[in-house]
């Protein structure tokens, strides 16, 4: 497939780097100000080298990407809430041109799911978004394989930063602020960790899953979300007295979405440690399935993008 990649951050550049290994070709790559377009294949290393050196990624305008002869648009621009722009318009444009779209950007899938599906219905192209939920962990494709109708609920840990903080608090008996600072030093938490610790990031992912289960109907606004900022070390100590611990757990069902700190058995499947993520897919006829692994990171997320590309029919 010929890929046009929007976004040259952690995800976009990893997709560009790895595309060849997965048998695909990059014909366009853009960041917020520039693009490089070459129908015989973009020189990815050169373009990224130039960006790293503080120069332009290429000599084209980001707009030119849509004019390229591509099969799949990879949407890896920043996740935005509400109208989910500019991601949504990017997807719209590609579908109107009868191209496929693979998203890493959670915004459009969480906030405007029905509109995406309506655009897809009128297009020869289709959309996939495995990378939006749980990085490298196959979540959407597992649900697809089980068939969404037979999945009753999806629960789990889908934010590595919050999970790291709770794990460290429990292990070291330290308070939230201490551990958050440590996580920032280690690069596990971003300078502004708000969406990770207040539950928004996890909620977006569970909203996407609720949309998959119900064929739409949910946005962030519908989710009941509590963060971990108010969980003191003493609460983790009390949980441990009883063989339990606290994790930021999300739940998606056809009834709704809930994210908040919850008590789980210390040795249970959902009590993953560090930045690890896990989802438990509850099925009607086959009990629960657990998928666990790295929920974020450039190459991890890029593998989910490229797996989606591999699942697309040729246009």
């Amino acid at each position, binding site marked *: 497939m010929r890929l046009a990649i929007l976004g040259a951050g952690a995800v976009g550049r990893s997709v560009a780097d790895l595309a060849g290994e997965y048998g695909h070709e990059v014909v366009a790559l853009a960041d917020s100000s520039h693009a490089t377009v070459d129908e015989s294949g973009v020189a990815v290393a050169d373009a990224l080298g130039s960006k790293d050196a503080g120069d332009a990624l290429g000599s084209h305008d980001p707009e030119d990407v849509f004019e390229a002869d591509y099969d799949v648009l990879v949407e890896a621009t920043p996740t935005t809430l509400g109208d989910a722009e500019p991601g949504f318009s990017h997807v719209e444009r590609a579908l109107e041109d009868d191209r496929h779209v693979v998203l890493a950007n959670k915004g459009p899938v969480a906030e405007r799911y029905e509109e995406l599906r309506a655009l897809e219905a009128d297009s020869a192209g289709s959309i996939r978004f495995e990378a939006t939920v749980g990085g490298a962990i196959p979540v959407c494709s597992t649900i697809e394989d089980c068939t969404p109708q037979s999945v009753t*609920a999806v*629960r789990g840990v889908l934010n590595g930063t919050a999970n790291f903080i709770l794990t460290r608090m429990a292990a070291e008996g330290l308070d939230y602020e201490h551990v958050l600072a440590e996580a920032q030093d280690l690069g596990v938490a971003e300078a502004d960790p708000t969406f990770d610790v207040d539950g928004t990031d996890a909620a977006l992912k569970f909203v996407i899953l609720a949309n998959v289960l119900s064929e739409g109907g949910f946005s962030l606004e519908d989710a009941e979300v*509590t963060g971990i900022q*108010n*969980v*003191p*070390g*003493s*609460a983790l*100590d*009390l*949980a441990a*007295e*009883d063989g*339990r611990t*606290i994790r930021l*757990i999300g*739940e998606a069902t056809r009834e709704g979405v809930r994210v*908040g*700190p*919850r*008590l*789980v*058995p210390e040795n*249970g*499947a*959902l*009590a993953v440690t560090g930045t690890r993520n896990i989802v*438990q897919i*509850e099925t*009607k006829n086959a*009990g*629960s399935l657990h998928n666990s692994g790295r929920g974020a990171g450039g190459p991890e997320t890029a593998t989910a993008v490229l797996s989606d590309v591999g699942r697309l029919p040729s246009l």
Partner: protein
Amino acid sequence: MSELDEESDDEPAETDGGVRAYTVRLELVDEPGELLRTLEPIANNGGNLLSIHHERGNITPRGHIPVEVDLECPPDRFEGIVEALREAGVNVIQAGADRYGEELNVILVGHLVESDLSDTLSVIEGNEHASLVDLSLAAPEGMDAVSSARLRLAVDTGRADDALETVREIADEKDFCVVEPLLGGDA
């Protein structure tokens, strides 16, 4: 059982008045009339049915349907009921004198002491389906700072959500953060 049955709809299963509440776990064969066949021996032997809890879609490895029946009866009649059930060919898995079928833990965080802990607890105990088994308080920064408490509640089978709703309400009112247990699924 008609008279008693009507009463039981809105009255809690009190252990006074000479009757006690019991939970019986059964496994039924998936056949029409099975449930009715189960309920008859209970009524005929002086038991009053309080509730039947049957998880739809939940099937044992042998293909049977697990059902929990809450009933009340004078303590000396309980043995007879269980015997009658077994004689009727019903598979009785567990017959406990324990009124409360489930235990759940919940952690509250906030100004627990300053906001009248005993009032909080009595509101929770005011839920007819819940009873406080024990409480553990951690106030590392002193009683007038933010503290945490773990409450272990015994709740009637199938009433965990009801009990948690009471906890959520009082927490909301007093501005506590609640760490609820994850119910459902095998966490």
